[in-house]
């Protein structure tokens, strides 16, 4: 899941990128509202972690702009001002969640997952598909009673596929899920992770659609299309 971090403090910004990365997210960081606007135009993000006090204005401005433009992008506000009044103001401005500084990395990751889950219209944290129970919080799953652990990148690919089960996900979309801007994309990485996933989940779990991308195979005896 690719997230945009809008935070001007370099140490915290770095911590958010790395820390959310450890939880299976791919995070890109910007330090100003201007850069955030540019980033949101350029790339497709699953959600935004937004600081309120930024050098060139308030994060609430960006929030208001996005909501005014009809964007339903999940946004978690991150701020030092955590009085109830400030929280109410932030949530009323259209934020999906609110976290006061300093926060716990695990809580931030959990709230971000919950926020994205709600955005996808799922209530349960655990995703079921074709005999696999996937737990995003722990980046692991169970299939046929066996626990399966995934690496961060394997999980990112699997999550991208399982969010829209049965739909064909293009390779560049998967690559975008895997890498932030700073990282070099290696041409066969997606194939490598698909290969590893097939080894763990069974060869038929993920189907390759030539020239289009990948999709999860339909459960036995049923149509794959939702």
């Amino acid at each position, binding site marked *: 899941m690719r997230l945009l971090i809008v935070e001007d*403090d*370099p*140490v915290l910004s770095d*911590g958010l990128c790395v*820390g959310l990365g450890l939880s299976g997210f791919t995070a890109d960081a910007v330090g100003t509202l201007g850069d955030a606007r540019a980033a949101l135009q350029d790339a497709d993000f699953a959600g935004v972690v937004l600081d309120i006090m930024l050098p*060139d204005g308030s994060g609430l401005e960006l929030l208001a702009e996005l909501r005014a433009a009809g964007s339903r992008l999940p946004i978690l506000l991150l701020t030092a001002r955590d009085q109830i009044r400030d929280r109410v103001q932030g949530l009323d401005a259209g934020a999906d969640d609110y976290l006061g500084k300093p926060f716990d*990395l695990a809580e931030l990751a959990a709230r971000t997952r919950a926020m994205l889950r709600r955005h996808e219209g799922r209530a349960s944290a655990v995703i079921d598909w074709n005999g696999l129970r996937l737990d995003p919080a722990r980046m692991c799953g169970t299939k046929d009673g066996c626990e399966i652990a995934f690496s961060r990148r394997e999980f990112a690919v699997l999550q991208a596929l399982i969010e829209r089960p049965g739909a064909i996900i293009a390779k560049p979309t998967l690559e975008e899920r895997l890498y932030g801007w700073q990282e070099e994309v290696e041409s066969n990485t997606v194939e490598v992770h698909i290969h590893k996933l097939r080894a763990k989940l069974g060869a038929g779990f993920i189907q390759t659609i030539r020239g289009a991308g990948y999709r999860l195979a339909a459960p036995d005896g049923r149509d794959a299309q939702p």
Partner: protein
Amino acid sequence: MSSIRTRLFAILLLATGAIWLSAMGWIQHSTRTEVGYVLDRRLQESAQMVASLIRRGGGIAGPDAASLVDQAPALPDSGPHDFTRQLVCQVWGFDGQLKSESSGAPRGRLADQAGFTDREVEGETWRVYTHVDPELGIRVMVGDALAMRDRLVHGVVMGLLAPAVLILPLLAALIWLAVRRGLEPLDRLAAALSRRPATDLSPLPETRATSELRPMIEALNGLFHRVEGLRERERSFTAFAAHELKTPLAGLKTQAQIATLAPEGATRDRALAQIAQGVDRTDRMVRQLLDMTAVENPVQADAPAQDGARILADVADDLAGLAQVRGIAVELDTGLTEWRTPHAALLAPALRNLLENAILASPRGSTVEARLAQEGETVRFSVLDRGPGIARTDRPHVTDRFYRGAANPSGGGSGLGLSIVASAVQAMGGELRLNPRAGGGEQAELILPDAPRPAPP
């Protein structure tokens, strides 16, 4: 006198007393004159009456003729005084013989002239009226003793004074009550103020105040307003500072958790390095907050004057470590100035923040120049760097508190540095000039008066 009430009471009492005393003096004087006049008329009438009685009696002044004076009408309103019995009368013939005298009259002749005379006869002073009757050839002299008159005047005056003396304490009590009553608004104000909690800085009601108290209430309300403003500033500063510190703390906590969670050693090491960097930045921010407080509330003690060049050198020395880490050379040029200032506590933080900004903004390998020069009436500290300079759009705001450049955010600043410099320079009565440097970079100058002026209020 410390109490307005006592003071007012004393003034009123003294003034009233003085008026009362002069009134008493005036009453005594006029009573004395009036009584004297009435008694004189009485003497005259008695003498004329005696003369007319002698004439009616055939013109012969017998030995009893003088006793007729006893029939003279009593003094009107003379009350219980036995004045009538005190008149004496002598009837002298033109031939110099004493024809008649009343009982109590002295042996000596009472007067030699006609009309009113004062004469001392047999050890007593007499006031005498002499009526000359040429037809009968007699002089009728009627007199009374002056001592007697004084007693009478004294009696009358005392009769008037006694009630006035009794009135005096009553008057004092009334004045005291009136003063108390008159000063009640002051008492009410004092009570209202003393009941106030320290947090209540709402203005006092002005509309119901007396016109004398209104200027004071207005002044008090003005003071309340200023104190409230100051307190609001403090409060917002503290709140802002606390919030500002939360961000680096959040960074530290996040990095610490990464260091705990990260499976790879490289990520852990990187997180630890970030923690070290974060601690440095937080430390700088805390120091700047302390600087800000020190600069905003300068200690006005008479600090000994310190060498300006020395202060600059010390500041540069303090920042040598930072400059080395960043690969910046700091070049000092303090010239031959002997300028000294008592404001070391203001100057040092100002210079440190300017120099620190310059070092942090400079590209690796460049040189930051710090100069001190004396130019006539002023002293100029210049700090020059080859960094990106302050963006044009940021210039009007750079000295605002917590303003971090929007156009060119380095991400490292707290937004306090230049605000500290500006406050310190203002307190020293000087000027901060920020200009783009020729050839790129920023040129910051502190222009200070040679003889330190008191800061403008």
